[in-house]
């Protein structure tokens, strides 16, 4: 059985931890929590009160923590988005090399589809409109813009990130409605694409939500 003294001292330690965990702009609130604990009484009520204070502090701490302030996260995101942009641009170049041979990209078609029978893709390449290519290029451009902003530590990167990722997912879903696209690739290819696109969109949403939370502080 816990004595009131031990409960009280644990509660005091928890509130101290909460006070230290709160971001600096909440220093007043840390002092308020400490002062309030004296009036809560002893025993389990003090302990429950202190736990709530700690929960509040950790929540505020998370909201104040900007993801893009962490160098490792910044570089990982930049590399990831750079890869996505490059992947989409390769697809655009592949389709263009087939649809517009006058651009002199024909050699690219064979290189991009190295080792596989690219001729099976031809029906799909035929139905891919220039409008779709424009949308892909737009997505790629927005990813590259997000990369540049991330490296400059601009929080606006999150806006371009989530916009590009959402558009990318929308284009992918639209393509799934095209039987020639579905039959041109294996189920594993489609699943992998979906995982990449939806995962990227999820990352974008996390960055956007974090930016929104930080900007309200």
């Amino acid at each position, binding site marked *: 059985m816990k004595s009131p003294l031990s409960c009280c001292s644990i509660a005091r330690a928890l509130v101290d931890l909460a006070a230290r965990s709160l971001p600096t702009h*909440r220093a*007043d*609130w840390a*002092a*308020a*929590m*400490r*002062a*309030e604990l*004296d*009036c*809560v009484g002893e025993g389990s009520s003090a302990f*429950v*009160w*202190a*736990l*709530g*204070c700690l*929960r*509040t502090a950790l*929540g*505020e701490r998370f909201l104040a923590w900007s993801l893009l302030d962490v160098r490792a996260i910044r570089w990982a995101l930049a590399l990831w988005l750079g890869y996505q942009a490059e992947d989409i641009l390769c697809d655009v170049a592949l389709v263009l090399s087939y649809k517009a041979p006058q651009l002199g990209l024909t050699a690219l078609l064979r290189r991009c589809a190295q080792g596989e029978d690219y001729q099976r893709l031809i029906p799909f390449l035929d139905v891919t409109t220039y409008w779709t290519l424009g949308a892909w290029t737009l997505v790629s451009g927005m990813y590259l813009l997000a990369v540049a902003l991330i490296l400059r530590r601009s929080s606006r990167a999150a806006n371009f990130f989530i916009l590009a990722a959402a558009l990318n997912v929308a284009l992918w879903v639209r393509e799934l409605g095209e039987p020639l696209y579905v039959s041109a690739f294996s189920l594993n290819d489609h699943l992998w694409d979906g995982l990449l696109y939806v995962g990227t969109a999820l990352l974008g949403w996390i960055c956007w939500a974090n930016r929104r939370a930080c900007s*309200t*502080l």
Partner: protein
Amino acid sequence: MTRPVNASRQTRRLLAALAAKPRAWRHGYELSKETGLTSGTLYPSLMRLCDQGLLESKWGESEGTGRPPRHLYRLTSQGLALAQRSSTESASAPLPGKTRELKA
């Protein structure tokens, strides 16, 4: 046309408690007991209300030797208006299960 109050049930309860004595300065623990909110729900709500200029706070007098002064809270005129709108809406419509707090 005024916008509907988009506040959680807990925040509405807190607003109602604060609006019941609009001129009085209230302590956190007192509000917690009155509303039944735990400190883990009460403090984030108080912080958001303060951030949005709906609540004002000040330090009270020390209540005894060795006791630190306590934080006191009161609705601003904006907060009071919101609380009144919230109570009108609550009376005219059933509360949704859970709605998003004002920016929280």
